[in-house]
């Protein structure tokens, strides 16, 4: 039994439905009405009132943050604001969100103020040095929390702007599909889908930008009437590839797709309207959507059960940025205006995250960007954990580079909200070191009796717990749909060690480090434990286990006089163990059973058998390699028989050739065979290219419940340690020796 099945069973058992329906009481209750009345109050329009109120609130805030309390007073205060937060969080509405965020900022800032003012050793000692380290990490976490609140406080959630009836007003578009080392089979669907986008034929040109100088790419491009471009070098990787194509092309807009991001036919019609509405708009970005599980999802076996790691960014952060006119370019699934791109000298080449830097340069010139949170393209996620980590390392390094060479806090052209949004995007990637600090901080006491927080455990509790609780309540409120509480810890922990070094190095020397291409489309053939990736965590895990053991000794014998302090550090270590366990789960690479990903389609279909007979059926899912069919009756067709499969979409029919690979009961699987270009076109049109291809991708998603999140992470943590132990046991040398002897 794996984690996924346990979770599903648990939910079933507790009768927790897929979607939680909000009680109407909380939609239209007294609190909502009074809130609305407050917002609509006519007094606000009187000049000065708003400013005066804001100032009064600030003063009150400052007072509440700095006023010294005794332990009991602090406890009462904490309980009071926690009660308010826990009560109002069930109500919907932005006003309530703002109140929850304010309470969280209050609790956290008060905690931090207390940490600075009352919990530090004053005399110089080793304790003080370690304590300062922890304090710095906490200050970092507080900064990210507060800027994060600011960034995502009011997601814009743009809608597409319809195109004008008059086709002559539609701009010309160049579609760039850069590729470096990806196989042709990955690129074909993207090119075909790009050609199938709904746009006047004479106003769209598709370019295959091949940095690999490959003949099969050239031939394929010629066969589908796509312009093939290449260059003699690979300077500046993808950014250089795109820039090299700019002088030879002339479309007013440039749509860019990574060669494995397959657009739907509506992509251009959904995005271009925004350019016609705003002539200062330089870029529109749409989400990067992945139809295959990323390594986290695969290894934890949680694909589509809860939001994945990237979803917070595309679901919330970009929409939040958009309010402040600070949506970033993400390198693919985006449209740029040529004149403005040329004005900044093409795609930025100074860093390894050319996309974010390009957006920064556009913003500096005063141009606008937009984010359209409607999935208009889909691609493959990275396959293995090491590739995933490699990609994140690149992002982290690139962001650190921008921070050094083109810091958004300084320089011309940005307004303050944009500076803060960019700052958060970059600071976010510095979480490596603080995360490691949090994972090891309690050990300094358990091992060396270092009192890094100079306060009694109960005092720490009454200050720190409100900070943690309110941060989680507010984050769950704002991010719940896009990231579940506590899972963020797992995702960040798994990457912390690896981005710590490159971000630090890039801070020291922004020129170091090169662009590494993200490998996709491979296959994990068997279960294995990624030792290389998880070694640092294994060491930390081992230290924590030892710490727990020592902690018990301290609890009962050596340090029983400071029982509270030992207990506090023990609990902290236990929590760290759970997070580390879940991280181990991630590192245990699950075997990919199928060569290709599969996507549910549930389209009516028809099989045409070799004898001319047909079967009306339903196509359940598709993959790059084939289709799974649900039959109405059992069918006597041999494996390997050539068949034709038609997929029906509305009144249109798309037929592709295939061969039966599996036929048992009412399930038939077929592999595409002898596909010519027409067949590819039909397949892409029936699958990826559909306007509604990615709608309803998240129907069975649960809303966030923080305590359940904790339970789930706890489960994953135990599961991870258990699985790790089993895998370790199986591959341990002495076991191998035993097996070999037999």
């Amino acid at each position, binding site marked *: 039994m794996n984690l996924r099945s346990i979770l599903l069973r648990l939910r079933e058992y507790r009768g927790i439905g897929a979607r939680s329906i909000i009680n109407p009481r909380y939609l239209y209750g007294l609190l909502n009405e009074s809130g609305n009345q407050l917002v609509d109050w006519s007094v606000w329009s009187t000049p000065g009132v708003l400013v005066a109120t804001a100032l009064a609130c600030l003063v009150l805030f400052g007072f509440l943050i700095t006023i010294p309390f005794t332990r009991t007073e602090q406890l009462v205060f904490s309980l009071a604001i926690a009660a308010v937060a826990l009560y109002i969080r069930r109500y919907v509405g932005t006003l309530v969100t703002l109140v929850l965020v304010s309470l969280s900022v209050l609790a956290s800032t008060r905690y931090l103020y207390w940490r600075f003012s009352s919990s530090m050793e004053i005399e110089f000692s080793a304790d003080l040095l370690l304590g300062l380290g922890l304090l710095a990490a906490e200050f970092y976490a507080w900064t990210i929390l507060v800027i994060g609140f600011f960034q995502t406080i009011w997601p814009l959630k743009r809608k597409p702007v319809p195109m004008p009836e008059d086709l002559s007003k539609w701009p010309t578009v160049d579609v760039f599909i850069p590729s470096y080392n990806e196989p042709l089979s990955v690129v074909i669907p993207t090119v075909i889908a790009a050609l199938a986008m709904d746009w006047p034929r004479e106003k769209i040109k598709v370019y295959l930008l091949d940095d690999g100088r490959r003949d099969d790419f050239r031939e394929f491009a010629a066969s589908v009437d796509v312009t093939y471009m290449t260059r003699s070098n690979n300077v500046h990787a993808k950014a250089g590839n795109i820039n090299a194509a700019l002088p030879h092309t002339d479309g007013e807009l440039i749509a860019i797709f990574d060669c494995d991001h397959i657009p739907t036919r509506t992509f251009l019609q959904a995005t271009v309207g925004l350019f016609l509405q705003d002539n200062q708009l330089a870029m529109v970005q749409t989400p990067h959507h992945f139809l295959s599980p990323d390594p986290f999802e695969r290894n934890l076996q949680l694909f589509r059960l809860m939001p994945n790691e990237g979803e917070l960014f595309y679901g919330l952060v970009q929409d939040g940025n958009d309010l402040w006119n600070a949506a970033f370019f993400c390198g693919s699934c985006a449209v740029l205006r040529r004149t403005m791109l040329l004005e900044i000298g093409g795609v930025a080449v100074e860093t390894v995250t050319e996309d974010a830097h390009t957006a920064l340069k556009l913003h500096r010139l005063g141009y606008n960007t937009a984010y359209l949170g409607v999935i208009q393209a889909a691609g493959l996620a990275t396959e293995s954990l090491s590739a995933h980590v490699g990609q994140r390392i690149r992002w982290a390094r690139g962001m650190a580079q921008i921070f050094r060479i083109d810091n958004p806090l300084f320089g011309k052209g940005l307004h303050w909200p944009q500076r803060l949004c960019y700052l958060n995007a970059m600071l976010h990637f510095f979480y490596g070191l603080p995360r490691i600090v949090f994972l090891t901080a309690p050990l300094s006491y358990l091992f060396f009796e270092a009192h890094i927080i100079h306060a009694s455990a109960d005092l720490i509790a009454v200050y720190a717990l409100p900070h943690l609780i309110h941060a989680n309540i507010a984050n769950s409120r704002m991010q719940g749909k896009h990231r579940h509480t506590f899972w963020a810890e797992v995702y960040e922990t798994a990457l912390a060690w690896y981005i710590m070094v490159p971000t630090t190095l890039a801070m020291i020397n922004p020129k170091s480090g090169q662009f590494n291409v993200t490998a996709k489309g491979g296959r994990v053939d068997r279960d294995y434990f990624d030792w290389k990736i998880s070694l640092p965590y294994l060491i930390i895990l081992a230290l924590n286990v030892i710490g727990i053991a020592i902690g018990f000794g301290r609890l009962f014998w050596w340090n029983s006089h400071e029982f509270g302090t030992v207990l506090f550090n023990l609990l902290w270590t236990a929590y760290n163990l759970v997070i580390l366990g879940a991280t181990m789960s991630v590192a245990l690479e699950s075997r990919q059973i199928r060569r290709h990903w599969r996507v549910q389609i549930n389209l009516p279909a*028809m099989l*045409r058998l070799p004898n001319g*007979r*047909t*079967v009306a*059926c339903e196509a359940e899912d598709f993959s790059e390699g084939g289709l799974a069919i649900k039959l*109405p009756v059992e069918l006597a067709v041999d494996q390997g028989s050539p068949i034709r499969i*038609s997929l029906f979409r509305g009144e249109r*029919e798309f037929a592709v050739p295939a061969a039966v690979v599996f036929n048992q009961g009412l399930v038939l699987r077929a592999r595409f065979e002898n596909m010519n270009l027409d067949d590819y076109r039909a397949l892409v049109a029936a699958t990826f290219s559909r306007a509604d291809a990615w709608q309803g991708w998240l129907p069975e998603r649960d809303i966030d419940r923080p305590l359940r999140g904790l339970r789930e992470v706890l489960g994953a943590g135990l599961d991870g340690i258990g699985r790790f132990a089993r895998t370790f046991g199986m591959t341990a040398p002495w076991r191998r020796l035993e097996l070999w002897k037999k």
Partner: protein
Amino acid sequence: MSVIVVASMKGGVGKTSVTANLAVAMAAELGDGCVSIVDLDPQNGLHLHCGIDPLERQSICKQALRRRSWHGVMVDSRFGVTCLPYGVASESEREAFEDILAAEPDWLERQLTQTGLGGDDVVLIDMPPGPSVYLNQGFACADLLLIVLLPDAGSYSTIAAMESWIDQVAQQRPDLQSVYLMNQMDEAVRLNRDMGEVLRQRLGARLSPVGIHRDEAVSEALAFLQPVLFYDPGCQAAHDFQRLAAFLLEPVAR
């Protein structure tokens, strides 16, 4: 009573099997005995699709010559459809029958009224290909004209003639609806697919959104004297006929 006349300008487009199979699909929707099929094609093939004995004595042609009503001709098939066969007729009998039709333009309408079928009943009438006295009778009393085409050049070339003809009829019968139906589609055959596209563009909304796929099961079913919905209910053609029935019955139901 709703009257659907099934016609084509060209022979061999599968008109008769469309009539029979569509009727069976409609009967499945409306209930046994609610759908009748009338064979006005001298080829006399319709009854075979419903498994009715080819030697059935009573037939439309003979009864017409005897100036009798259709009551004795109506045979309930095993498939929920009432069938009225044209009957085996000698050359002279056929000519005599056609003379009657030529002389009495409202003959078919009278016969239909005399059957005493109710308002919810549906009658499908199979016509010989091309212009004929039979078709003229059909034009006079049809509610819906279903024109069967194949996705090939031959069928395409007949559309112009068919359309000018329908325009003429429309002057007398402005309420007559017409729907084109594509039969024996095979998206896997290039020519078929391209001709289908040309037909779709040419006919636009006049083409039924539901077509019938080419399917060996249809021919095999006839060899077993069965409609395809009974012979192989899971096949695509059976599925198509069901959808076509639902599509055509929708305005009837309204």
